[in-house]
């Protein structure tokens, strides 16, 4: 078999070409590594509304002695809006933290009952306590869709100008998450 003639000048670019696969692979591997360490739950859908004004809505009150929630009630100060339901088990786990957050954060929490029966919701609050300053009923779930939620519980931090500052996906069920949320609330105040 004849040996191919030596190729002085042309070989460098060729050799670099052979490096391309391993370079590309390293890039991909780095992405994978970062993805592994990102604490985000892969099921979480990032909110499209962060930084945007809250959507318009008006919801009827759940309890006779507590007003409902509407867009007009937002604004003026930082507020938490918490979507929950009586059929939602993680909401129960989150419940004790809500009162604490309201106190430590020094802000009111507005609750929105998502696709629930009013009686069941009232019973839930009677059993666990009521940390909310206002509660509205979203029977159809349409307000939830307007907020872009994908389930409950989801909690929104609203800035004084009515914009959505931050969205907490999933329940607050441990101190770390609670602290993180409180930090976001503080940021939002500025």
């Amino acid at each position: 078999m004849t040996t191919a003639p030596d190729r002085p000048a042309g070989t460098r670019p060729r050799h670099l070409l052979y490096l391309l696969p391993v370079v590309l692979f390293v890039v991909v591997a780095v992405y994978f590594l970062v993805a592994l360490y990102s604490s985000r739950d892969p099921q979480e859908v990032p909110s499209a509304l962060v930084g945007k004004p809250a959507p318009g809505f008006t919801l009827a009150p759940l309890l006779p002695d507590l007003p409902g929630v509407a867009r007009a009630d937002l604004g003026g100060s930082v507020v938490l809006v918490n979507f929950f339901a009586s059929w939602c088990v993680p909401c129960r786990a989150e419940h004790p933290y809500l009162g604490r957050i309201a106190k430590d954060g020094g802000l009111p929490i507005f609750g929105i009952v998502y696709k629930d029966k009013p009686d069941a919701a009232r019973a839930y609050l009677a059993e666990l306590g009521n940390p909310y300053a206002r509660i509205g009923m979203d029977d159809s779930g349409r307000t939830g869709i307007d907020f872009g939620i994908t389930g409950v519980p989801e909690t929104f931090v609203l800035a004084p100008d009515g914009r959505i500052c931050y969205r907490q996906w999933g329940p607050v069920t441990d101190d770390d998450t609670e602290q993180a949320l409180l930090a976001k609330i503080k940021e939002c105040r500025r």
Partner: protein
Amino acid sequence: MRCALPGFFLDSPAKAGAQGNRHDADPGPPLSRGNQGKATTKAMLLLLLALVLAPPALAVEPGEMLKDPALEARARAISEEIRCVVCQNQSIDDSAADLAADLRRLVRERLLAGDSDQQVRDFLVARYGDFVLLDPPVKPKTWLLWYGPAAIFLLALAAVAVYFRRRRGAALAPPPLSADEAQRLESLLADAGEGRGSP
């Protein structure tokens, strides 16, 4: 852990019968894909799009369907492009999830309110982001997805062309004859004609 009813495996609890008296009402003309109206070109194109896109759908409940077949067809077409965000890789057309059912109803409501297809899509994207579209939008961040394959193909073709040119270059210089072969060539040429042997 959250309470988003995973669509894939569960019953759709909001069956048509449970929604008021829907089950008594006429569910509308059965949707048979084979006989579509051939109204306007736009409808044809939409239909084309609908039939071009991935087909099947379990989850549309009879009670959700619109009376107007053209609108219903548009709703189905749009639904097939909208991701069920609480499911695993399904469109809202395919999924039995609660949220998917809500979004299906929403799509139909918007269509009844007169929105165009793009307006319906924009409505959903405003709330859920680009993620809700199964067909990623053509933005700079998705250029690699949309133009990448063709670009890579063309680049590869170019590389192959270079490969051919290089090898042809090597082939233009044939390997030198061995001593044996040179001798044979001489004798052959000498045989072929007097005086026309090798110089």
